[in-house]
């Protein structure tokens, strides 16, 4: 029995890259448990799209958010109770269309959260429109003559926004992806995992990715090197592209405080209010 599965019926297309992401994350959770982080402490969230369905398929607590907002949702969870590990599954349309401001700011403030991007270069659930990461010329129902916009580079963008953990994975390289996920969740700060996710129905990229992916043999030790790897076009390097230790947002905000577990007593609070009023 798969104790990380729910009774929800899986409705992804056969061969969809999302299956690999789901399988990899379950493995990652089991490894995290072995390493001491119980699943009751791992909160998940998701945007709206094919990717978001992972929320229903995972027997983990959390909040199924709205389109493009899951990264704000999990930041709120983390600020309220920093003892929790929080992970959002986002779509490429979701994260870099609706949610781009949240992505940039979460990285900028080094929020201690993990974003797993189901990067399929397409709006899957709404039947195949181009997304912020689709190649120029991409043909979809809203761009029948081909997209006339340049794509965003999620890795470079997140690096530029001061993300402290940036990685790229590919479900076909499952164990490699699992390892990245474990490290991303363990990272204390903003971690971003761009998962190359083929969409067999609207953007089948298996062949292209299989030919282009290349597992990095080391974690680059400079920001400059990370940027140049993120921008490579000839190859699609996989692995941790950048990692930096930096004070996470909630610690900078309130140190070792925890709003829900260290809450001030009512009596103390009232005393302080009375003091403020009599000033």
């Amino acid at each position, binding site marked *: 029995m798969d104790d990380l599965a*729910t*009774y*929800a019926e899986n409705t992804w297309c056969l061969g969809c890259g999302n299956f690999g992401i789901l399988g990899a994350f379950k493995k990652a959770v089991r490894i995290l448990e072995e390493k001491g982080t*119980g699943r*009751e*402490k791992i*909160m998940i*969230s998701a945007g*709206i799209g094919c990717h978001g*369905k992972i*929320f*229903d398929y995972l*027997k*983990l*607590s*959390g*909040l*199924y*958010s*709205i389109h493009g*907002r899951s990264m*704000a*949702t*999990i*930041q*709120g*969870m*983390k*600020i*309220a*109770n920093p*003892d*929790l590990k929080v992970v959002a599954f986002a779509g490429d349309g979701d994260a870099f269309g609706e949610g781009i*401001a*949240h992505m*940039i*700011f979460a990285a900028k403030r080094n929020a201690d959260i993990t974003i797993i991007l189901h990067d399929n270069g397409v709006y899957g659930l709404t039947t195949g429109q181009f997304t912020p990461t689709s190649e120029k010329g991409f043909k979809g129902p809203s761009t029948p003559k081909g997209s006339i916009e340049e794509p965003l580079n999620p890795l470079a963008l997140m690096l530029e926004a001061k993300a402290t953990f940036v990685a790229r994975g590919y479900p076909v390289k499952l164990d490699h992806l699992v390892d990245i996920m474990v490290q991303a969740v363990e990272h204390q700060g903003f971690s971003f995992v761009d998962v190359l996710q083929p969409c067999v129905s609207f953007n089948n990229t298996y062949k292209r990715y299989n030919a282009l992916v290349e597992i990095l043999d080391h974690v680059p030790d400079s920001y400059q090197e990370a940027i140049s790897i993120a921008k490579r076009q000839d190859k699609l390097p996989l692995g941790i592209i950048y990692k930096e230790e930096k004070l996470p947002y909630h610690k900078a*905000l*309130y140190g070792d*405080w925890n*709003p*829900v577990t260290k*809450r*001030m007593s*009512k009596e*103390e*609070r*009232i005393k*302080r*209010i*009375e003091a*403020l*009023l*009599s*000033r």
Partner: protein
Amino acid sequence: MKEEVFTFIVGGKAGEGVRKAGSVTARLFASMGRQVFNMDDYGSLIKGGHNFSVVSTAKRKITSHYINADLVVAPDKRSYDIHKGHLSERGIMVYNYDTVGEAEGVGVPLTTEAKKYPKPDLRIGVGAVATVAAVIGSDKEALRNLIKSEYPRDIENNIAYAMTIYDIVYPKIGNKFQLQRGDKERPIVTGNEAIALGAAAGGLDIYYAYPMTPSSSILHYLAAHDKELGVTAVHPENEIAVMNMAIGSAFAGAKTMVGSSGGGFALMQEAFSLAGMVEAPLLCYLGSRPGPSTGVPTHTAQGDLNFALHQGHGEFARIVASPGSMEEAFYLTAEMLDLVWRFQTPGIILTDKHMAESRVTVDIDAKKTRWPETATHSGGEYKRYLDTENGVSPLLFPPSKELIKWDSYEHDEMGVTTEDPSMIAKMQEKRNRKKKAVADYLTNMHTVNVYGNTGPVILTYGSTTMSVLEALRCREIEAMVVQPVYLEPLPVWELEKYKENSVIVVELSCAGQFASLLAEKVGIQPKAVIKKYDGRPFDPVELASRIKEVV
């Protein structure tokens, strides 16, 4: 106007310390045990323009400023010209001789004296305070102490300047208005401070907001006093993040509040509905200014009533309440925090710039508040959306061995997405039952304030209640003022009894939204609707004559 009220106006350009001078004068009056109402009229700019601060004081309760002043201090020609028309019959104009020249009133060389010290422009406000002290016969020692505590930067020069101005003013008009001491010294708060402290008293853990007048000062206040109060204040990238973060925090068990004004609140609508769907307890603060759109940022209006009542898409219970005094702002915020947690649905505290930013002496007993009571899970398999009689499901917070799933899609009791027709219907009904549960609960609560017991019935709400009560006081008009504190659900059960009366409605709206609401929900057809929609609150004298006209 009855002599019992004394009003002071100080005008000037933004950046000259006009508002500060108003608030310091308010302190001076409060320190005499008097009650105070201080309203700032300022523009959406940082330097220049024309700002003024009105401070009215009485020995009794006072719930509005008066626009006609007994003392005006005009540091420049523009202030002189504008506020000449604001002098009461006994009013005295004290003007800056250096900028106005020879004119009617009492000329004082405010600038010449200020130039003896560095940064003369910033000192003019201190001169205004010294003028008030002289005119009301306050002694120099009291003035010295006031300057010391209120202008902590460059204390010695400020004191020296204040003493000089006092000595120039005193021989001319010193002691002209002898203000008696009142019964006791009270704290002064703005409506926003009352709301921030009320939320804290009600158990607030986290406040999220993006700056927007007139809501910003709640964010500023809580950020300044975060450690002291044990409240976390966060200013994220935009209002959409504000609302979604707040819902995430509520999921983790934090008592959370957000705040904004019209435009920012519009950005929160999508997530307001998310709160309705996931059944997140969430308190929202909406401080209105004249709209639509950017409108008039630093002025006042009650034009967002319908917006507040119909916030969000889809069907779910909403609670909307609007306080009619600073004290009520404090208690009601705590009470609303309890309600949104009790019913796990979003609620809105609705005010406007007039209440949010005016400074008033208050009697607040912080102990008269309680922390939210929530239905909590007591064991067995946890179902987030357990179908209950009143629609409210028990809460459980992470970390827990139980599965806790909040879902923006329609869901089953476990919080797993569904498109099953019978489940959809069941959950729609569950959420709908909460509306009735809220209304039933409110039936046993104090939901409508009634002031007075004879005379015509005046229906009003929010900050306008303060204006109406002061209008009646100043002209000794007998009337019954009926103010619903709750607007959604509207306490029709309390309001119905006024259907047969001849009713007057007073509100700060051009369309008359409050009157329409009363007509639609209660069937009240007012004899007259007194409206104002120029961005300024009512003056009690003007309002009193409009009330007299229609009764």
